């Protein structure tokens, strides 16, 4: 996927100790494999199989995805605001491709 499109929604700032909710929406077909396309070819499985989120030196969340996750997968989770810094989102796709995005959280 040349243009990996991820929308990360979260507050730009938070008080230390607050719990912030993070919502992530990615554009991805999540091809579960074995289906037949318009030309009669079998589409191989190609899904995002993992999303990890690191913040302030820790892994704060991981989402292991299988073929039961919908196309254009959405996920939301929470984390505790501890220090100003980037949340690093990393997706792993079948075949080994890795996509990374960051979002900054300012902690007051």
């Amino acid at each position, binding site marked *: 996927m040349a243009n990996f499109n991820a929308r990360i929604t979260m507050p730009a700032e938070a008080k230390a100790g607050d*719990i912030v*909710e993070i919502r992530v929406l990615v554009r991805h*077909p*999540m*091809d*579960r*494999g*074995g*289906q*037949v*396309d*318009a030309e009669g070819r*079998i*589409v191989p499985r190609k899904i995002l199989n993992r999303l990890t989120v690191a*913040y302030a030196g*820790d*892994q*704060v*969340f*991981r*989402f*292991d*995805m*299988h*073929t*039961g*996750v*919908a*196309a*254009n*997968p*959405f*996920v*939301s*989770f*929470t*984390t*505790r605001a*501890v220090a100003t810094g980037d949340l690093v989102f990393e997706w792993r796709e079948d075949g080994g491709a890795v996509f990374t995005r960051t979002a900054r959280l300012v902690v007051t």
Partner: protein
Amino acid sequence: MSSPISPACAHRDAGPSRRDLLAAGSAGLALAALPYPAFPATQTPLAELIARVTDGAVPTRGGIEFEIPRLVENGNSVDVAIRIESPMTAQDHVRWIHLIAEKNPFPDMARFQLSPHSGRAQVSATFRLATSQKVVVIAALSRGGYLMSDADIVVTLSACIEGG
């Protein structure tokens, strides 16, 4: 393409079409009884699917707020929200939350890995359901033991189940 109305789902000579299925359904036949080729010949029983993720332990029922529509119009996108009451401290937190759909071609749908950094055990996501079935949530607790909750879901338009 994985859209339910794409030709990918048509696959005419492989089994009864959706129209056949609907007709059969309205004639009062149980859909599950039809020889639909997409289902594995032997389905793993739910108890075994659960035992697989809990290493054989029997989870305790309750303690999970499991939000999922009981009637799903489109199995390709089913919103699920899960919340578990937990202090989420280093000693006492939810380690992970696992979702099983017993009649999906691949029943293990996803796992959310949480930690004390999560602050709350609260997640949501969108899933695919191949057919009407029971969906089970299993949560692993740091102090040992597992919680579970389930829901019977009716799916009117299934996610394309061929090939899975």
